């Protein structure tokens, strides 16, 4: 079953090209990584899939359903959750309130909400002691964990996560990636955008490499890892 399938997708910011003619798919239960240099269009692609930027051409299918006319918040309700770059947690709200907003759209009774809240805290124990603090007071790594935890509150079918390692020290990065593996282990499909190739290929089953808005390479993680064109794609884009 294809969780996400993009066919010839193009996104433009006014006259500026974001991505052009991208086709890719993510199967149910997979971890797929989107790789590429800065400005290659990875984040744009995620934003197009989650619906916060409009597309110019092409189609987005989510479990076979066409998403062209579905508004961004509706996509979340269908189980497609996007943890954006820079975490974007609500700093003026408490950790608990942030998590509660993660199941905003779910039609749950109060008891069920608390239950889910406890489940997620079990999964992300770092947050436990901070539940009543303002999210803005957390450290960077804790904020990233909160962002993922917030995304997991609604038990998404697909979790898209953008640059989870950005700005974190290696130790925190390990924690975050362990969590991601734990998330995937619950059966959640993960679409991961990452600049750090080695990190991403370690947990992903497959990967796509974007270069200047188009797919340059794709394949299994293990084959890609040894492909010399991979580093060329990075270096090529960087030397531009």
């Amino acid at each position, binding site marked *: 079953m294809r969780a996400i399938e993009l066919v010839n997708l193009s996104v433009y910011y006014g006259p500026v090209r974001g991505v052009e003619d991208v086709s890719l798919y993510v199967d149910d239960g997979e971890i797929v990584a989107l790789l590429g240099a800065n400005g290659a269009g990875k984040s744009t692609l995620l934003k197009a899939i989650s*619906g916060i930027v409009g597309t110019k051409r092409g189609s987005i299918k989510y479990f076979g359903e066409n998403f062209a006319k579905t508004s961004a918040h509706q996509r979340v*309700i269908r189980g497609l959750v996007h943890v954006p770059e820079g975490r974007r947690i609500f700093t003026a709200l408490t950790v608990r*309130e942030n998590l509660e907003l993660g199941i905003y759209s779910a039609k749950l009774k109060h008891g069920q909400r608390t239950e889910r809240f406890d489940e997620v805290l079990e999964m992300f124990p770092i947050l436990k002691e901070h539940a009543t603090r303002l999210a803005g007071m957390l450290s960077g790594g804790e904020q990233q964990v909160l962002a993922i935890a917030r995304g997991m509150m609604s038990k998404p079918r697909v979790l898209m996560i953008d640059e989870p390692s950005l700005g974190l020290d290696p130790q925190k990065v390990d924690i975050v990636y362990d969590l991601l593996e734990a998330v995937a282990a619950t059966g959640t499909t993960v679409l991961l955008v990452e600049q750090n190739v080695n990190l991403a290929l370690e947990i992903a089953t497959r990967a796509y490499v974007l270069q200047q808005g188009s797919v340059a390479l794709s394949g299994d993680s293990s084959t890609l890892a040894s492909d010399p064109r991979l580093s060329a794609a990075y270096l090529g884009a960087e030397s531009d």
Partner: protein
Amino acid sequence: MTLLMSEILNGLFLGAFFGLVAVGYSLVYGILRLINFAHGDFFMVAAFVAYTILGSSIVGHGHMVWFTVAWVGLLVMVATGLLAVLANRLVYHPMRRAALLSLMIAALGLSQVLENGVLNIPGWGSAYLTFPVTSPPNGFTVLQTNFSWFQLIIVLIAGFLSLGVYLLVGRTLIGKAMRAVSEDRIAAVLMGINVDLVIAVVFFIGGALAGAAAVMTGVYYGQINYLMGWTVGLEAFTAAVLGGIGNIGGAVLGGVVLGIAQSVGTGWFGAEWAIVVTFVALVLLLWLRPTGILGERVARRM
């Protein structure tokens, strides 16, 4: 000394009105960063709607009248809320990508449209209209100052409504969604929050509060006019800034502080200088505390 105390008590009463309208101002500002100059005119339109409905539905005397006032009040709150939602849908929503100044000018245009719309409606027009129901004068005396029971009821209703909104924003899920939208609209969308709906709810609440204030104004003061919204709007806006705009508790507090400042200032310098006292106090306060009394949350964001 008793004069000062009675001025403070009067100021508290005035502040209840300011605060109620200011909460609406503050809510909309908090979520859209828009100084909604038309907000005072929602209040004005509400007073006229209440005037018309009450005029045609008052039957009987005594308690029956107050029962009618109560349900008309609720009806007008809903109607004004819907008016605000409609204004948002027709004017502000299509402009959500425009610069704030453009939005502000559009709000001024809307204010003109509402005022002059009422001016041109037969039966409303430019005259000072006498409200069909007026509050009975009997009451009680505190510190040699007479208050009517109705004034007490107004303060209680205003306090009750403000507290309701405060709890709604602070405790409920939709309230949390409002705060989320106010802080980061994109992230809110990614939580599955229907931002347009949240904004509509905010306009509805703001409008409904203005509607409640309008009915109480009509019944208490007994007189309405098509320009009544402008002054109230200006005072409410000042109160909202004074308390720290975007902050519900701040709006109520700002209203009370403004009411007291006006009342006491009038006592010292004469009513003709009331507005000068108000604004000098505002400048001093902003100088010492540039974000208003309770404005920290906004300050950090800016």
